[in-house]
C-alpha cells in the first residue's frame, strides 16, 4: 500500500499483482506502459497519460490536466495540513523589500514582502489575520524555493 498526497488530500493506492491499481479501496484500474513516460490507464482501451518522477513527487498529465502527487514515506509522514506554517519562497527569487517586522499585527491580504523573479514583482501576502513571529530574510537576499521567509501565528 502506498499513500499519495495531492494538496491536503491523501490517497491510498494498492498496486495489485496483475498490474491494476485500486485507489481508496475502489475497483481496480488497469494500467499499461506504452512507451517512455507513456501509460494507458482505465478500463476498455483507457486514456493516454504521461508520467514523470522527481524524488518523491509524481507528475501526471491526463487529458490536458496536470497532477502533482507526493509519494509519502509511511514512516515519516508530514501532517496533512500545516496550520500557521512559515511562508516560504515559491521559487528562486530576490527579496526586493520587507514590509513587516517581528511582532507586527497583519490582516489577511496585507503585503509582507516583495520578491522579484523573472523580472516580475511578486508580493507575498498574509494568508490570514495574525502576528508576525519572525522575519527570516532581508532585502537583496537570494532565496531558494521552500526557504521560509516569514513565520506567523
Amino acid at each position, binding site marked *: 500500500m502506498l499513500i499519495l498526497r495531492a494538496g491536503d488530500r491523501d490517497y491510498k493506492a494498492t498496486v495489485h499483482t496483475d498490474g491494476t491499481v485500486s485507489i481508496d479501496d475502489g475497483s481496480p*484500474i488497469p494500467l499499461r506502459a506504452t512507451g517512455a513516460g507513456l501509460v494507458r490507464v482505465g478500463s476498455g482501451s483507457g486514456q493516454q497519460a504521461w508520467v*514523470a518522477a522527481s524524488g518523491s513527487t*509524481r507528475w501526471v498529465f491526463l487529458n490536458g490536466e*496536470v497532477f502533482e502527487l507526493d509519494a509519502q514515506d509511511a514512516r515519516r509522514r508530514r501532517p496533512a495540513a500545516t496550520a500557521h506554517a512559515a511562508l516560504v519562497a515559491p521559487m528562486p527569487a530576490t527579496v*526586493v523589500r520587507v514590509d513587516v517586522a517581528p511582532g507586527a499585527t497583519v490582516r489577511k491580504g496585507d503585503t509582507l514582502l516583495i520578491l522579484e523573479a523573472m523580472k516580475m514583482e511578486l508580493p507575498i501576502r498574509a494568508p490570514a489575520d495574525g502576528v508576525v513571529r519572525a522575519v527570516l530574510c532581508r532585502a537583496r537576499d537570494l532565496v531558494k524555493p521552500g526557504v521560509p521567509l516569514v513565520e506567523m501565528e
Partner: protein
Amino acid sequence: MTLRRVLVANRGEIALRIIRACRERGIESVAVYSDADVGAAHVTAADASVRIGPAPPRDSYLSIPAILEAARGSGADAVHPGYGFLSENAAFARACEAAGFIFIGPPADVIERMGSKIAARALMIAAGVPVVPGRTPEDQTDAGIAAAANEVGYPVLVKASAGGGGKGMRTVRGASDAPALIAAARREAVAAFGDGTLYVERLIERPRHVEIQIFCDAFGHVVHLFERECSVQRRHQKVIEESPSPALTADLRARMGDAAVAAARAAGYRNAGTVEFLLHGDGESAPFYFLEMNTRLQVEHPVTEAVTGVDLVQAQLTVAAGGALPWRQNELRQRGHAIELRIYAEDPGAGFLPQAGPLLLYREPRGPGVRVDSGVREGDRIPIEYDPLLAKLTVLAETRPQAIDRASAALRDFPVLGIRTNIPFLLRILAHPAFQAGHVDTGFIDAHLSTLLGGAEVPQEAVAVAAAAAGDAGAERGPGGLSRSPSPWTALSGWGR
C-alpha cells in the same frame, strides 16, 4: 548587399526561429549565451556560439558591449535582436551600425522616437492617427505623476515610458492608491529598462487589443499584413493571439490597416513592425486608438505568417540586406484562421507565479496545421532569470471553430511535467463560451478567473498512474521510471500487451 553571418542577440524560441531562417538561405548564424544557457537549444542549433556573460540579463543579453564584442569576434556582418532584451534599444541599434554591423530592424532614430511614448504620440497626432488621452509630465517626481493622473482623469494607467510587455505598468483607480502604485511602477521600470520615466494615460475600460503588422523597405514600399487580436491577456501579458479578429468587419479592418500604414509612413519606418491599437466596443463604428508601435518582430508573428502565408523573418533578412519587399499590398490575403497560445512556465493557481526547474518530460504535439516554436527540450532546466515563455503553439485551420478544436487537441497532446505550465488554463480558456463566441477583451481573464483556474479533483486514474510510477523510489530521472520494456515494472505486471 548580402548577409553572410548573422549574430542572434537573443535566446529561446525566437533565437531558434531566426537561426533556422538564416540556415534556409545559407546565412551562417552565431548564437550568444549566458552561463544559464550553456548547452541550450539555441546554442546547439547555431553554426557558432559565443558566451557573453553571467546569467543576469544586464550582464549578458542586455549588455551592449558584450554583444558587440561577440559580433566582432565571430565575424558577423549583421545583428538580429529578436524581441525583448535589446530589440527596442535605440542605443544598441546605433552602436551596431557604428560598429559596422547591419541592425536587422528599423533605423535607430525611429526606435528612439517610437520608444518614447511622448514622441510617438505627437507623431501620431500629427499624422491623423487617433490616440488615447494622456501625458508624460515634465515633473517626473511621484507627486508630479500623481498630478498628471488627476488631470487625465481616473482610472489611469501608469507605464514605463521606455517599456513594454507589462513591466513597469500599474492601473490606478483613484488618488489614494496612487503613491504606492507609482512607486512600484518606477521600481520595475528601473529594473527592467534602466529608465524610470513614467507616462500616464486614460484607462480605456475593457478594450480589445488589436494590432496591425506592418512591413516597410528602403524604397518607400509600405504594406500591412492585417490584424492580430491579442485581447486575452493576464497582467498585461498576451496569452492568446489570433487572426482574423472576431471583432473586425471588412471596413473596420481596412481603416485600421490604413491607419497603421499612415503611422509607419509618419515614423519613417523600415523592416517589420507592429502598430498596436485599443479597440473600444463592437461593430462597424467602434473607435480605435493608437496604443504604441513595437519596432521589432513580435512574439505572436506566427499568427500572421499562418494566415497570410508569408515568412516575416525571411522578409526581415531580405529588407535588412537592402532588398525590396517581396509582396505588394494587393497580393496579401488572410486565409483560414490562426490561433497562437503561449505556453508559460507559470502556476495560474498561484497568481501566475513563474516557475523554474527541470523539464522531466516535455513532448510537443504534431499534426497538420500545428506549429510549435520552442527553445527547450526534455531534460532542460528552465532558469529563473528570464521570461517564462517555454513555447508557442500556433494552429491554422479553415475556420475559427476548427482552429479552436485543433488547438484543444494539440494542448491535450502537449505533456509538460516537472514544472507547472498554463496548459490546463489555456484549455479552459478555449472551452469558455465567451471565448468561443469571440467575446473577448483585455479584462477577459480577470473577469472569468475563478472558472478558468479550474481546481479539478484528482481523478482516480491519475492517482493510479502516479502509484504505479512510484514503484521504484529514486531521484529526478525524467520520464516516470517507465521505460518501454524491458523494465521491472512491465515485467512484474505482464504489461506491454
